[in-house]
């Protein structure tokens, strides 16, 4: 995972709430066995509509997605995060994210920022007026700055530390396997096992 310190880019407004993972990437696009190439499925159904904001050339190259409330509801597919990343997004901003989506994004290194609805609206207005408006996200300071404004956001310290260090969870947990072993030694014997196969 790459370290995430600051990011400077342009943003695209997605004025929709309840964007579920079936919209982010429809199931028919889930059939790859790799983590790349999912950009073709991103918002696939909506991209058929020439009016859809991702088809607006003014926003080409945007790396920050600013969405309505309850972004990422629905399935646990991490492909939704990969599709956003494969397409080039580094940051998603919304007033509320679905839990599993948020967890997945933090693990994969896609920064999800929660801002109050009013701030999301303010940001929409700025980028709708000027699609080339530069946005800076500073993870150390937990700040977003644009059009002379500075907004602060909250992020769990542990998550922020991991993102800033680019650390992968598995590596961290593998350093603690002694404790896992101790826990296993005390597990109740009645807990089920899948092996051997019984019928």
């Amino acid at each position, binding site marked *: 995972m790459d370290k995430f310190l600051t990011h400077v880019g342009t943003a695209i407004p997605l004025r929709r709430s309840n964007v579920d993972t079936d919209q982010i990437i*429809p199931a028919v696009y889930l*059939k790859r066995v790799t983590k790349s190439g999912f950009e073709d499925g991103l918002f696939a159904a909506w991209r058929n509509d020439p009016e859809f904001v991702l088809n607006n050339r003014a926003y080409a190259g945007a790396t920050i997605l600013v969405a309505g409330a309850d972004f990422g509801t629905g399935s646990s597919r991490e492909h939704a995060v990969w599709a956003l990343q494969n397409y080039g997004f580094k940051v998603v901003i919304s007033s509320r994210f679905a*839990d599993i989506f948020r967890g997945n994004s933090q693990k994969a290194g896609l920064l999800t920022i929660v801002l109050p609805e009013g701030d999301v609206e303010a940001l929409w207005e700025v980028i709708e007026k000027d699609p080339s408006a530069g946005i800076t996200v500073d993870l150390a300071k937990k700040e977003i700055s644009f059009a002379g404004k500075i907004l602060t956001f909250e992020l769990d310290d542990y998550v922020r530390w991991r993102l800033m260090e680019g650390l992968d969870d598995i590596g961290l947990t593998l350093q603690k396997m002694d404790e896992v072993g101790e826990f296993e030694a005390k597990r109740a014997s009645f807990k089920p096992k899948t092996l051997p196969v019984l019928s």
Partner: protein
Amino acid sequence: MQAFYLNQDRMIMGKTLAEKIWADHVVRSAAGEPDLIYIDLHLIHEVTSPQAFDGLRLAGRKVRRPDLTIATEDHNVPTLDILKPIADPISKLQVDTLRANCAEFGVRLHSLGDAEQGIVHVVGPQLGITQPGMTIVCGDSHTSTHGAFGALAFGIGTSEVEHVLATQTLPLVRPKTMAINVEGTLKAGVTSKDIILAIIAKIGTGGGQGYVLEYRGSAIRALSMEGRMTVCNMSIEAGARAGLIAPDEVTYAYVQGKPHAPQGADWSAALAYWKTLQSDADAKFDVEISINADELEPFVTWGTNPGQGLPLSANVPNPADIVDAEERGAAERALTYMGLTAGTPLKSIKVDTVFLGSCTNGRIEDLRAAAAVLKGNKVATGTRMLVVPGSDRVRVQAHEEGLDKVFIDAGAEWRNAGCSMCLGMNPDQLAVGERSASTSNRNFEGRQGKGGRTHLVSPLVAAATAIRGTLSSPADL
């Protein structure tokens, strides 16, 4: 002084069921870090696992506990001609990849054609590897189904699948708890599906975000295990991390005798532990809400998220009546997508396809309930009905009980087990503009096929709708 005593009281305050299970699985807890939680059972399927196994391979890691891991093929398997090679090359690649990964890493797999194959959330309970007090995860959001046994069960992403494969643990932040009290008695024709659709309509698709829901109350206790699974299954549709129900005699009776149920002394020890698994009387939930079961009616969704539902006797709502601007916009978009006009009686909506199946309502009781309504009747002309058992075991049992014959005689299609039209990854899909009444759990745009329009219903409503060709309950027959 008084404050001191209050604090003391707080410290010995009772725990909720979710908190008890959590506490029993903490491997490590440190300030400023998520807790490291031990995972008792890891369920795997073909769609969300390939990248996780690949990650293991790249890092030279093994599956730490193959004996706590089990895989099945469900999401994109065909439900016809299952013994022929899978026609869709990409589905075939995923299934083949799962088979190769399970063989390489020593993971038990139930493949297409195997007696234990089926939807992962149907297979776990029927094997008896889903038991009270466990932590259960799967790369699938409807893992919440297993919460019906009083287990803490939730969906995870592929990075987490890899994490569990490698370490049998997950770093997790403890969720908040919400009690949902459903008191009273359901009227005839009202089912567990209607309870959960009514709950989601009440709290909204974001209402459960950050919470583990505990369903309680007399109406929940009166449900069978399968009914409880239907309720817990859709917890995720309210945005919740998980949903659970305290185990009781109904739970113990269901588990006992299943292939992987504890035996002998283990059974006694397990039972003694399971009996401690209730929220303490003085436990405090972060939020509590109540639903009156006496007032519930058969429920149906009219929109494109599971919270957009109403009693079947209602009319399509008018977005202009919705105060919240975002919700109003969402309702307008939903009606356009669904091709519905405000004020239309829901019961007059004509349905092209009825889908009976999925991990929500593809179990034997669901098939029995629908068959009882269909018996001696015919599926309406112009309507097709697809019946897809949740597992091969359900299919065999339905056959032994003669249910398959009831469906076939009524003119329905009788299929092999899998997720099928629940998410339309296999050939079972709606066409553009086609309308379904579906016993599954998601009515998102395009969920059952691009441009398809989904109304979520119970198995009873599905069967009555198939007969009349319009959204109906058995009382309308």
